[in-house]
């Protein structure tokens, strides 16, 4: 793997900073003969990082035993089983900011294990998102937030521009507001061969999309004393945005059943004009071998809702250490290593968003140097949204449960079984019961 000299020096200095906290030696401690038991998230985009584990083993003399490596939802179920059966006999687990609050106190507070100097190098907002109930239960590995990808040539076409301005009364440009996204989606759509935009339609995915739209419309999920408040006017406006586009047929007819793979592959097939999507897809969209629109992809910050706020649903993949861990120092050394400057560069080169401030700059410099202006632009755009727009769902244990009440009702409105107001009212009633049962009210 080629590394620019600049990246290398920066990497070394980052390591030096960490080591500086642990006296002068440039290492991660020594845990000779110790076997660290870990559970990691698996899948193509996560695996390259694990190839680095050998280096840590060599430095510390410890062995890493990967107990399981599966996708996030399987891992979530496995951890819940472990809690139930009392088999938390492992040390490090992959985690996610949206899932972490569910696990109660099984994970330890990392502020007691990792020095302030190290933590100071992470993006502060991301560390805040990793904190549950005042405890830093996870160390962020990479973050994600969505921005708007679009097919550039559609906007460079002068005929399009003239026709659009004649019809909608303002010049055609990458959209700044969701209102404009709606206009442009309607303008570009030519079903069933070409669609204006698309969105995911099931599971926590649509809950999240609705939630960020709700925020952008000036609404909130819960009042300050945890009463569900998403059935407000802002909520109806947010949901109607999805419903209207679905009714108009400018999104694929199957969206209520779509998940991330459907939207990603759909955009790459070149049959969708605008696509709000995660940073992780950027490299894929621009890859000649995978995508029909390589070289023709534009990216712009996620548009604003009527409240002037941008949609910025965000989450981070993280590592946590169990309370029951028998060698927390080794575990802390391990996750610090996996999230250090060089390790984050391994992931950044594949388009994943780093959580250390310095890595952003190194990565962008490296992309520029290599002449990859697209990826540099992507990182610039995403850095802005990570620092200015990003927000997480409420970090409460009941989030997934509330989501499971909410998304079937969002679908009901989309497919026309209920009006948006009725759908949200019904979901709010169910959510209220969950919150009451959980003792919030």
């Amino acid at each position, binding site marked *: 793997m080629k590394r620019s000299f600049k990246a290398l020096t920066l990497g070394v200095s980052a390591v030096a900073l960490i080591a500086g906290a642990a006296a002068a030696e440039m290492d991660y401690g020594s845990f000779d003969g110790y076997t660290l038991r870990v559970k990691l998230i698996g899948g193509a985009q996560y695996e390259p990082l694990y190839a680095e584990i050998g280096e840590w083993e060599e430095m510390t003399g410890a062995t890493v035993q990967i107990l399981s490596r599966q996708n996030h939802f399987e891992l979530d179920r496995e951890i819940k089983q472990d809690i139930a059966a*009392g088999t938390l006999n492992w040390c490090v687990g992959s985690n996610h900011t949206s899932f972490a609050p569910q696990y109660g106190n099984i994970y330890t507070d990392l502020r007691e294990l990792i020095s302030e100097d190290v933590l100071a190098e992470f993006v502060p907002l991301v560390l805040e998102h990793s904190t549950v109930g005042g405890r830093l239960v996870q160390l962020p590995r990479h973050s994600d937030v969505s921005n708007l990808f679009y097919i550039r040539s559609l906007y460079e076409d002068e005929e399009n521009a003239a026709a659009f301005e004649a019809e909608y009364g303002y010049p055609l440009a990458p959209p700044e507001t969701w209102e404009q996204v709606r206009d442009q989606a309607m303008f570009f759509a030519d079903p069933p061969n070409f669609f204006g935009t698309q969105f995911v339609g099931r599971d926590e995915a649509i809950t999240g999309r609705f939630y960020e739209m709700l925020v952008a419309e000036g609404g909130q999920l819960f009042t300050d004393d945890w009463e569900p408040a998403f059935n407000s006017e802002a909520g109806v406006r947010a949901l109607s945005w999805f419903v209207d586009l679905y009714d108009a047929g400018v999104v694929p007819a*199957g969206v*209520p059943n779509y998940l991330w793979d459907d939207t990603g592959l*759909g955009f790459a*097939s070149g049959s969708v004009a605008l696509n709000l999507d995660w940073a992780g897809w950027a490299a894929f969209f621009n890859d000649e071998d995978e995508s029909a629109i390589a070289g023709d992809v534009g990216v712009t910050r996620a548009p604003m809702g009527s409240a002037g706020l941008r949609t910025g649903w965000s989450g981070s993949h993280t590592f946590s250490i169990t309370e029951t861990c028998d060698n927390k120092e080794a575990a802390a050394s391990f996750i610090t290593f996996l999230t250090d400057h060089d390790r984050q560069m391994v992931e950044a080169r594949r388009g994943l968003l780093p959580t250390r401030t310095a890595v952003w700059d190194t990565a962008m410099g490296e992309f520029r140097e290599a002449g990859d202006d697209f990826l540099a632009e992507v990182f610039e755009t995403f850095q802005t949204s990570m620092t200015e727009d990003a927000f997480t769902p409420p970090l409460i244990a009941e989030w997934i*449960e509330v989501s499971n009440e909410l998304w079937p009702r969002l679908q009901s409105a989309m497919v026309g079984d209920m009006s948006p107001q009725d759908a949200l009212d019904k979901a709010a009633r169910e959510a209220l019961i969950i919150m009451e049962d959980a003792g919030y009210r």
Partner: protein
Amino acid sequence: MFRAIRTRQTTLAPLVLLLPAFTVMLFVVAMPLAFSFYTSLTPYRLTRPESIEIYIGARNYIRLWDNAAFWAAFWRTILFLAIALNVELLLGLGIALLINKLTWGQRTLRTIMMFPMMFSPILVGFQFKFIFNDNIGIVNNALQSLGLIDRAIPWLVDAQLAMFSIIVAEVWMSTSIFAILLLAGLLAMPRDPIEAARVDGCNSWQVFRHIPLPFLMPFIFIAMTIRSLDVARAYDIVHVMTGGGPAGRTELLWTLIARVGYNNARMGEANAMAYVSTLLSIAFTVFFFRKLMAARRYMGGAE
């Protein structure tokens, strides 16, 4: 004295022979079931292990009475089973009759017939998810290429089509089992009466209704009983294809239970649902088993 030992042996022997079977069933099924019954009487949540010690009586069950989503899933599951099992039976019977007619080359076709049985339910789910995809799925692409439709049909979204699609997947996976069991029945059947009836001038339907059909009835009930034993494996298919959505249109008991139990971590409530769903499976099985016994008595074959 010799006689006495013999008698004791004959009463003991079946018990000894059945002991392994019942031991393994008690160990793997009954014990976990007893445990899950207990948890259905608690507000047990996976993420709060201590909640298993709170006894709340039948509250989970009482709540189920008012749970509209549960009852919708309950009736939808019955509908799903009724349609799927009957379609599988009819198709399986048709295939069995066809193959039975062949005078040579049966073995190859029998193997081809069993091809879908090689597919794991989880794979069948993924396979039909792609086949029915509205944008890049093979079904819509074929219909569009043939010029039969000019817009994408949302197979997995539309109120009727979504159920239709998961039933197609389930039928595809399980028709072979019916076909092979019924084919076995046909092959075991004496041919002479049919020839005689033909000679007497009966048409095919008359022949079929009066001779093979009564003979096949026990086989049909066997197939039905066997299938109703493991219908729950349709869970894998539905879970992958639609996740019970959209808007709960394809929600079956099993997807609902899995979501409540694992995603929402409310195991107590989920186990109460699971108990009701077990009763449903038992009802189906007992129903067909009774029919089977009756058909056997009618045939005069049983003891």
